[in-house]
């Protein structure tokens, strides 16, 4: 396993390195200037130059980039120009909220997908299949902002049983029951699309799996269909589902931007919007880099889990 990870690491690092420079250069190409937002419209040229030198923006791009990398390596993420405070704290605060939301949604989606696909395959009943397929198409077709609004309208406006948005006032650990209430609507909203896609994929893989000769053999030996699905087909169908899960996690993080806006959830989505519109270079860089890093790490993780579940990849090396 370690050897496999080691083999995959270089290409991931190359993508990260290219992305980090790309982001660094791109952020500085955005029209607008942090100096003018900081100094105000009436600042004298001398004052502006002083601020520019203070931020290190008068240096050549490559010098700035190398300095930034050095900072990152020392764990210093810089100071936000506009919001003030260290980038590390700002990002950490937002990240906690976003991660709680995304991971909850992912777990929900996984649970729903497992239950629904196994049910569909084990029962193999016309009505069950039709219902699941209809619900599935609907869940994929409903855009996130539509389900979010319908959920808020239903459970916060018409039947006011759940909060319409925000995070629990004292953090997630203080009152678990309250946290569940706050998490429920946004997490369901975020999980719906991913859950549906995952269910569709897993059901299809299970069906394919059940047409394999080993299943016929097992049936001939008198093992029940349910037992074959649970003990053998599921295990064989899981590796490719993990790949889809990895892709879905990326989609979830993107969707989180929107869900956070709908449910006024103070996560990374709002932070990134604020940072870009304020030309807050240090904050934007770290956030965009984080987004690419998450993507790369997920891809790596997916491949490793894939290899763990399927020995052929581990040994063959063709991943």
């Amino acid at each position, binding site marked *: 396993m370690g050897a496999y990870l080691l083999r995959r690491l270089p290409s991931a690092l190359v*993508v990260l390195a290219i992305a980090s420079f790309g982001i660094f250069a791109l952020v500085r190409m*955005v029209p607008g200037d942090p100096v003018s937002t900081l100094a105000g419209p009436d600042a004298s040229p001398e004052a502006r130059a002083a601020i520019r030198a203070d931020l290190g923006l008068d240096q050549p791009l490559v010098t700035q980039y190398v300095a930034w990398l050095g900072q990152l390596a020392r764990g210093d993420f810089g100071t936000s120009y506009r919001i003030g405070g260290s980038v590390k704290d700002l990002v950490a605060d937002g990240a906690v909220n976003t991660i709680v939301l995304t991971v909850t949604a992912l777990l929900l989606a996984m649970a729903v997908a497992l239950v629904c696909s196994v049910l569909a395959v084990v029962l193999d009943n016309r009505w069950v299949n039709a219902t699941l397929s209809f619900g599935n198409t609907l869940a994929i*077709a409903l855009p996130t902002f*539509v389900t979010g609004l319908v959920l808020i309208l239903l459970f916060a406006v018409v039947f006011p049983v759940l909060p319409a948005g925000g995070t629990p006032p004292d953090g997630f650990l203080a009152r678990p029951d309250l946290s569940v209430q706050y998490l429920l609507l946004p997490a369901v909203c975020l999980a719906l699309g991913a859950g549906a896609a995952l269910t569709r994929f897993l059901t299809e893989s299970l069906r394919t799996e059940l047409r394999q000769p080993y299943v016929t053999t097992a049936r001939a030996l008198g093992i029940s269909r349910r037992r074959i699905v649970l003990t053998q087909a599921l295990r064989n169908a899981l590796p490719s589902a993990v790949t889809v899960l990895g892709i879905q996690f*990326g989609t979830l993080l993107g969707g989180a*931007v929107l869900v956070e806006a709908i449910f006024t959830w103070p996560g990374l989505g709002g932070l990134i919007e604020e940072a870009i519109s304020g030309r807050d270079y240090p904050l934007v860089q770290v956030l*965009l880099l984080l*987004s690419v890093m998450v*993507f790369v790490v997920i891809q790596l993780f997916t491949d490793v889990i894939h290899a763990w579940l399927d020995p052929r990849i581990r040994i063959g090396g063709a991943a």
Partner: protein
Amino acid sequence: MSESLIDIAAPEAGSPGSPDDQFDHRRRPGIWTALRRGKGLAGLILIGVVVALGLLAPVLAPHSATEQIPGANLVGPSGAHWFGTDEVNRDIFSRTLYGIRTDLIVVFLAVPIGAAIGILVGLISSWWTFTDVVAQRLFDLVLAFPTLILAIALTAFVGPGLRTVFFVIVAVELPVFGRLTRTSVRTVREMPYVEAAHVVGAGSLWQLRRHVLPNSMEPLLVQLAVSMSVAVFVEGAMSFLGLGVRPPQPSLGSLIRDGVRNMYDAPFFAVGPLALVVALVLGLLLVSQALAEARRA
């Protein structure tokens, strides 16, 4: 295992030249008949209704998109105003009909443009190893960003507006189609008949046009339908975040956002636009599913 994943992108091997194909040399039947029944037909009807409503907006709408009607402020649905009126006295039904047009531009113009460029880049770059590697890494990089984060970043360059939505859609779809085309090219060029064409002296361009492109058509069509439904979603999401069309121009997404702003005073506001968004996305999704099923059959 992963066959099903590969299958999505791999073109149908060896379909030209099969006995059923003798009378139709262009394309094997099946994929188009899928649109004449069941899911495909239902999807086409849904799309058709929404498109017709949008195209006929000047005829059907009782008011213009920006006309302010004196004395009608946030009134509920009635015979005069089917969807009610908004906070500055505009007829929501009329705005919704005109708003569809914005989405139609995004779906039927931006997506095909992004797809066309992506297919072209995919076809040409994948023919040589060097350009192939460069193009694939670039595609990877773009795909590494979640769509909405890309949208927010791009808005910083060009400001909010329909143009930005257009750019985002093109930027997101280009690598998707580029990569799909690349998979097809890689598969098809290994086929004996392409090799044979090469041997008898066919040029790269001729091979691409005559063999590779027609054989990549079906997966690309399925992806086109999927991408179009995603485009409706992206337009809505961007308008929702305030990155989309600028007021007073309506779009389905911006109407939904206005509806949310007035949710407590006028819960009826967003219902019409919401229903249309769902109809359009559902229609495109049904078509894509029907096409995909016909391909697999």
